[in-house]
């Protein structure tokens, strides 16, 4: 355990009842007592965002699809991270130097519209997404919606894990700090394999 791990644990322990018992039983597996103190708040770019590129129906589909890709559960999800608005912002900006990107997104949304994705129940949406994603698990398999699935998934991963909700809220990233010493490895067991 590093000094910083210990510090975060102590901070966490102080806020729960029976903190001393918590500390006595604490192991390195205990996580997220405090978040990265160096991370500034996210700029408020997407509050009340109106889509610029996608139609209302396309945007509705995109929002539902990305929410199922990265749902909110014990940590924030795509909706918390404004993934759909960010994607709209990026694809809209592609007009100038990468119009081909816009064509791909139109094609992907058109395919999902042929499946009535927007009006399916959540279970049916999930079932369709599992089918679309089959080639990821088995390269022999083909699916006409695979390109749309990959396009949305890759941009969603980019959007989510670069957001504050993804990077700090979900991954608990500890870098980008100002330190006097780099903590390094403090585990004797890592010195042998």
């Amino acid at each position, binding site marked *: 355990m590093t000094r910083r791990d210990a510090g975060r644990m102590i901070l966490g322990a102080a806020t729960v009842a029976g903190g001393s018992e918590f500390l006595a039983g604490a192991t390195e597996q205990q996580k997220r007592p405090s978040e990265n103190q160096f991370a500034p708040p996210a700029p408020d770019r997407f509050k009340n965002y109106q889509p610029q590129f996608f139609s209302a129906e396309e945007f509705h589909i995109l929002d539902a699809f990305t929410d199922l890709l990265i749902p909110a559960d014990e940590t924030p999800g795509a909706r918390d991270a404004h993934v759909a608005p960010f994607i709209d912002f990026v*694809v809209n900006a592609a007009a100038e130097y990468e119009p081909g990107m816009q064509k791909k997104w139109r094609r992907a949304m058109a395919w999902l519209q042929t499946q009535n994705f927007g009006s399916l129940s959540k279970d049916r949406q999930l079932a369709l997404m599992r089918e679309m994603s089959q080639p990821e698990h088995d390269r022999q398999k083909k699916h006409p919606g695979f390109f749309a699935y990959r396009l949305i998934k890759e941009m969603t*991963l980019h959007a989510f894990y670069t957001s504050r909700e993804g990077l700090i809220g979900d991954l608990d990233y500890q870098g*980008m700090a100002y330190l006097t010493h780099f903590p390094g490895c403090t585990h004797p067991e890592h*010195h042998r*394999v």
Partner: protein
Amino acid sequence: MKQFDVIVVGSGATGGWACMALAEAGFKVALLEAGSRIDWRKEFHHDWPYEAPFRGSGKPGYLRKFFPGASEYNYKIMIDARENPYTTAPGEPFRWIRSRILGGRTLHWARASDRMSDFEFKAATRDGYGEDWPISYREIAPYYDRVERFIGVSAAPAGLPQFPDGSFLPPMPLNCAETIFQAAAKQIGIPATPRRLAQLTRPLHGRPSCHYCGNCVDGCDVGAMFNTVDSTLPPALKTGNVTLMCDSVVSHVLVNDEHRARGVRYVERYTGRSVEIGAKVVVLAGSSLENTRLMLNSEHGGLANSSGVLGQYLMDQIAGAGVTGYLPVLKGGPVRDDDGKADGLYIPNFVNIGGRTNSKNFIRGFAMSASGGCQRFPGYARAMPGFGSDFKRQVRNLYPSYARVWLSGGEMLARKENFVDLDPVVRDKWGVPALRIHCTHCDNDRKLYEGFFEHAKELFHAAHGEVLHAEPHLAIPGSMIHEVGTCRMGSDAKKSVLNSYCQTHDISNLFVFGGGCFVTTGDKHPTLTMLALAARGCDHLVESVRRGAI
């Protein structure tokens, strides 16, 4: 025409050093930089991905088209390809990653600072291929010392003849993944040591220690990493002997009737006006290929090119992604600050250094690097199948265990067929002919990569790593950003452009610093050697002027 003692063209690593050394020796120096001086502290300040409008990627298509190799965080210190074209033959791509800015590529370099050894300087004597350098380790060692003491290199002594030790600051500690890889390397009998970095672990010459923010390649906001602006320029300016001229795009070295350099002509970056200034000595330090381009443009057939080899023997060290995956022992463990310092376990070359190390498949050597742990972006997630909460948990689970082993420099053989010349048609924004680059890999280059790849997999397996992606192909030339050669040094004036002091054989008052002089790439990162050769060249320059030889 304004007159100076010395004109230094370019403000990168060697230009900054030359400016400092020559100004401190009492010369009146004009330092010309093609790019601008930018507001340093304002540009570089710990930008988080979610603070950038496009989260680091820039407007779609913009950086790829106009600032190849740059990110949204650092493109302002990279070059604008629209103003600065270069050309290649069809099917022979070359990545030329450049900067035109006060400080040049020292603003975003990887900071790796390694000494070359006689295994490299005298490689031709050992294996019969190519030419030896006209300099030995013993001759350059005092200059390595001097440079290291000034720039500050954090490192651990390794006691290896192929990777000489120097004057070091304390090394940066290894993170967990690197510690495991170090143990794995030991088990399979290969050397491994913290990467040697021109990055301070204690204050030096008024520069503060590193604060481990991990933003080095976007520029260091306190100057803890060596760069011209924070390191060599302040003492240079303090002498009162330096005239700093940014936004001055040098187009020609001027020569007089006795075929001696008499100054340079430059174009004012914004007005396009052509200006000439004079000097007793001209020092080119505008990067390996820009120096050569300038010499090719200064005189028909190339300036100082009686040997005919100017432009030839272009090299870039062999690069490649190697192996990525994860270390199961770290899976599901606590999230730690793993990327606050430069990636770093360094595995110095251990092949073709005699006896059982000699390969039957290829000549020369390579160095590997290994690192891992939590990174600012979990790139491995793209390769993971599935979605939903399970997917999220898996990404989190692997986060602390991500690991990779990559090629941090393999020797590319020096070959005459790899060369640069001037494009007959394409010109840059200031009317200077663009460089035309011809560079391909040879069989030995590919075999050397295969050799690296086998060892990378072996190391990964010794660390009990699980491979997610293995890249068996080498990257296109230029990718390492260690382009060297085209103005090589040698003791035979018929086969080289420069002598061992980086002084042209043909024109005694013309010096060329940087990677152009390299006879081989070796397997080390090149900057420290460029700096040591520049320091040695400056000593020779000063001494020659004082005894009237120039």
